[in-house]
């Protein structure tokens, strides 16, 4: 059961370009980019328990860094991608240091303010960012002699990024570092009493999470080939939060499930309903989902599977 649950999605993901139209492949690419972002947000929200409502800032910093380096300095994609991750990670370090002693609502406020400032910079520093007009003509990435211009090539690039981020999250979460993240979420004074330097680990989580969001931003910039201050829109952050919460925060698969669902859902609704009904249906579905599966899709389904009588009582239920 679990083995099928693991390999089937991987197989489907790998063969997707073979049986999807270009348009559907576009949806899949966006789902992948949002998958990276949701995984990134989940490290903070799901594991350390701190809500970053400025996550679009790290996404936008990644997008702008990558676009500017390839456009202005004619860097190739890969070093630009690395720089995007590094700069976003540095921003994460900055926010993490700023909020060392801040938790809950105060952490949220710091992240929102940070995103607000960065967004203003992108609009007003016209010499650098071209202001609200944005930066068109961001080049498509190349891999050696091949251009990754086609949808299916780009799809595999995004898929590789998702796999990388998933592996990073998985390794972190299953290590003493991940346990320190969770300790901060669960009971900070107790964590400190046994020697966990919680503030240090909050900064670690913020850096890794922001670098991952920067990766998502770079992928986005080179896919849409255009970057404007819109990348800092609050909507992006809210979408990430919805994906993480609906999919199941604090689980590895949850953000990915959420990302696929909440990328495919609006597209499907667009095909079947006028836009007023789309938003209504979207909202209604979200409310229903949170009402019936308050812990998120993945934890609730794994609890259901674990709760059923099984032939192998020794098997370990997926950790929530």
């Amino acid at each position, binding site marked *: 059961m679990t083995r099928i649950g693991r390999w089937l999605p991987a197989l489907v993901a790998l063969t997707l370009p073979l049986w999807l139209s270009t348009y559907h492949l576009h949806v899949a690419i966006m789902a992948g980019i949002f998958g990276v972002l949701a995984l990134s947000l989940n490290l903070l929200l799901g594991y350390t328990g701190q809500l970053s409502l400025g996550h679009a800032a790290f996404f936008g910093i990644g997008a702008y860094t990558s676009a500017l380096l390839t456009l202005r300095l004619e860097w190739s994609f890969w070093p630009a991608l690395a720089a995007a991750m590094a700069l976003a990670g540095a921003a994460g370090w900055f926010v993490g240091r700023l909020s060392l002693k801040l938790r809950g609502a105060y952490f949220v406020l710091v992240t929102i303010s940070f995103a607000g400032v960065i967004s203003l910079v992108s609009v007003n520093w016209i010499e650098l960012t071209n202001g609200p007009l944005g930066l068109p003509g961001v080049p498509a990435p190349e891999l050696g002699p091949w251009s990754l211009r086609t949808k299916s090539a780009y799809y595999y690039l995004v898929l590789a990024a998702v796999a990388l981020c998933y592996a*990073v999250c998985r390794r*972190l979460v299953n*290590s003493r570092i991940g346990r320190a993240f*969770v*300790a901060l979420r*669960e009971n900070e004074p107790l964590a*400190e*009493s046994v020697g966990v330097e*919680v503030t240090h680990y909050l900064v670690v989580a913020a850096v890794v999470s922001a670098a991952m969001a920067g990766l998502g931003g770079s992928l986005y910039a080179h896919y849409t080939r255009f970057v404007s201050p819109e990348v800092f829109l609050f909507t992006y952050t809210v979408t990430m939060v919805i994906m993480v919460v609906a999919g199941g925060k604090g689980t590895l698969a949850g953000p990915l499930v959420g990302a696929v669902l909440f990328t495919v859902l609006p597209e499907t609704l667009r095909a079947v309903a006028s836009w007023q009904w789309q938003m209504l249906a979207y909202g209604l579905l979200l409310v229903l989902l949170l009402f019936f599966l308050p812990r998120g899709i993945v934890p609730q389904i794994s609890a259901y599977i674990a709760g059923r009588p099984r032939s192998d009582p020794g098997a370990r239920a997926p950790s929530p």
Partner: protein
Amino acid sequence: MLAVRDLAVRFGGVAALDGVSFAVRPGSITSVIGPNGAGKTTAFNAITGYLRPTGGRVTYDGAPLTGLRPAAIARRGVVRTFQRTSVFPSLSVADNVMIGLHLRGTAGLLAVLAGRRRLAGEESRLAADAAALIEFVGLGHRRRETASGLSYGEQRLVELAVALAARPRVLLLDEPGAGMSAAEKVGVSRLIRKIREQDVTVLLVEHDMRMVMGISDTVIVLNGGRVIAEGAPAEIQAHPDVIRAYLGTARGPA
């Protein structure tokens, strides 16, 4: 040796601790008793870095602990538990203790991301340590259960296992028997003795006099933020100041 010198903590105009001095002999079980508001928990908080004292100092083996953060104090071997039950509620008992083992692990960020093979060895060693600690406090049958689902007494045992996982040299227990049944208290007393046998010094805040007098080598009595008596349990029970301050009035045999 853990030594407290002239420790003072003021909240505004109120002196919760008003120049408290005592030393905890290595390898002993020392209890701090006193009426409610005497400053027992405040002393614990000031010793373990959860509260910055307004005066005085705390040293462990001569090195100052005052001003250090709780995690740094834990790293020096001084570990405390909390008066109110304090576990990692949504994690299993095993995962609770794994967090307690944090300082015994060595994996850094790069090693984790690179997926070094020796980390797997470290993880399984830590898991074995966790299992042993859980057996030690007698929760072997609850290992996979979520901490918040356990009974109050069992949660206190989880707490004890988490603290022990940090490999304390001095263990400060804040009312380990609070809210426990008489039978559970006997079990905890036995555990505390076993912990001492492993060369861990125990400093205890406890209200249950039977438990205090039964297991302590030394009893320190606080009242109004000051030490009013210190000595062996028998001396303390007979000490006139203690009887006046702590028990109210001396009663004849019933």
